[in-house]
């Protein structure tokens, strides 16, 4: 047997972000795989210890590039728990708008993204184009398209601009109208369907072994393990939505669950628009004095939210001073992106490696930090 070492990434059309896998292949079968993270290691955990609590807001969205809002949310939730502040009612609902729009954006990108590794780029273009409409909304609300720095400890940075709910309703209507077309083009299209059906299996035992959460876990175990249901944050306990699950997890199932989750996000957003208080304060200070000198009472807390890839959490330690003592980030794709690749990528073919990365939900910036 002859082994050849191949590099998948750090720059590769089928890779999301700069992440590399060294594959030892025999023919086109992968015999051994070694994940090589670190290309996006920017030392965030050390950087955060050296900046003020509020200064970190500019830093944290960058930890997960495609889904930045969850970072702001867990950071804010952690500080609010330590400082024991109550967030104004309206801010909770605005946060849900941001989080669900973020989920729609990343699911759209990821459903379209399957076009890259399967070779049907139309899907990618359609997905990105639809996501762009959501980014337009973000720009109207927060002033920025990708890194919003909008959810701040104690609430949100600013109230919603006038007329935004009408814009949101329009975007949702249009998205809902387009979704069946995406399903037809992407999930049922022979080019993609044949490649991802019964491919890249994820059994329930592997889920528990690695610690996979999110769609991976729900698609394999059939349990409704969604943090929005299990331990609701913001006002997720006051809206109705279903958690789609399955008991057989192949790549197609996981894509289907993403597709179904988008419908649920739209449902949540419509309820938010209906139920949110029309006005009121949106922010409280969590500490007296100037924002740059805010302090947080000593203590440690772990906060987690449901990201598109699973449980995303921050472990925050404060010693009562102006800067965090330690912040550790739990990237949602840590489990499948490192040990998962090493143990379960071997056995697949080279051309399936990119589909593996895509549908397992490996996001390199949150692994590297």
């Amino acid at each position, binding site marked *: 047997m002859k082994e050849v070492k191949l590099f998948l990434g750090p720059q590769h059309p089928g890779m999301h972000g700069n992440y590399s896998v060294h594959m030892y292949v025999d023919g086109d079968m992968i015999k051994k795989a070694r994940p090589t*993270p*670190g290309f996006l*290691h920017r*030392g965030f*955990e*050390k950087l955060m210890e*050296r900046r003020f609590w509020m200064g970190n807001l500019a830093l944290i969205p960058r930890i997960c590039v495609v889904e930045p809002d969850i970072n702001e949310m867990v950071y804010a*939730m*952690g500080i609010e*728990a*330590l400082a024991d502040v109550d967030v104004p009612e309206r801010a909770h609902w605005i946060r849900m708008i941001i989080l669900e729009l973020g989920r729609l954006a990343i699911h759209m990108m990821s459903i379209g993204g399957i076009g890259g590794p399967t070779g049907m780029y139309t899907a990618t273009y359609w997905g990105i184009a639809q996501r762009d409409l959501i980014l337009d909304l973000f720009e109207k609300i927060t002033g920025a398209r990708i890194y919003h720095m909008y959810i701040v400890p104690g609430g949100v940075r600013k109230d919603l601009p006038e007329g935004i709910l009408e814009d949101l309703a329009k975007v949702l209507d249009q998205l809902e109208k387009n979704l069946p077309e995406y399903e037809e083009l992407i999930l049922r299209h022979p080019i993609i369907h044949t490649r991802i059906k019964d491919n890249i299996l994820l059994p329930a035992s592997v889920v*528990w*072994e*690695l*610690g996979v*959460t999110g769609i991976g876990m729900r698609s394999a175990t059939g*349990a409704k*393990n969604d*943090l929005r249901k*299990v*331990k609701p944050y913001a006002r997720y306990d006051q809206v109705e939505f279903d958690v789609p699950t399955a008991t057989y997890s192949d790549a197609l199932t996981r894509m289907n669950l993403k597709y179904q989750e988008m419908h649920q996000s739209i449902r949540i957003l419509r309820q938010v628009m209906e139920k949110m208080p029309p006005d009121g304060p949106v922010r409280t200070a969590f500490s007296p004095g100037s924002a740059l000198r805010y302090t947080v009472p000593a*203590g*440690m*807390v*772990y*906060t*987690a939210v449901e990201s598109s890839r699973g*449980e995303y*959490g921050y*472990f925050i*330690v404060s010693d009562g001073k102006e800067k965090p*003592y*330690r912040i*550790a980030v*739990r990237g949602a794709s*840590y*489990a499948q992106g*490192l*040990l998962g690749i090493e143990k379960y990528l071997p056995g697949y073919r080279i051309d399936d490696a990119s589909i593996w990365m895509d549908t397992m939900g490996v996001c390199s910036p949150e692994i*590297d930090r």
Partner: protein
Amino acid sequence: MTNSTNNWIECLKKETGLEAKEGTASLQYVLDVDKQEAHQTLAYLKRAGFGQLSLLTCIDWIEQGTFQLIFILMHWELGHHLIVRALLDRENPEFTTITDIYPGAAYYEREVYEFFGVHFRGSAVYQKPLFLERWDDMPPLRKDFDPQAYSDGKFPKREHPHVFKANVVEVTE
């Protein structure tokens, strides 16, 4: 003990004598264990329903001269997060690997070794470099590591210091 009941706290107290306290956030608990009994406690907790290791990390309490290992476990049926903490001596930080209980901890252990220098006995791979390439200084998340000094010593100063200046174009009407 069944997984669906809320009595893991009582069972834990009865069987191991350890008491889990309420944490800062809701549905969150904190449990301090001795380094020696951490292993068996984690094994017990896994059987009690904490099937998932969400995070393994470390805190450097430099003034007390200790490291604190943090294991965050998740009980999905109850939605409980449990923070298990164990203190290690900072001079000689050693711990036994927990990959036999939570296999997913393998890469967390490598990370904690790389960033804090904690040794995990019993693991064959924990010393393999992970994120940092050709690192030649002390583990960087220790509190006595100074990134500024490292950077000054490692990289040459710019010959021409960069001055950021706005390029203002005057508009005449």
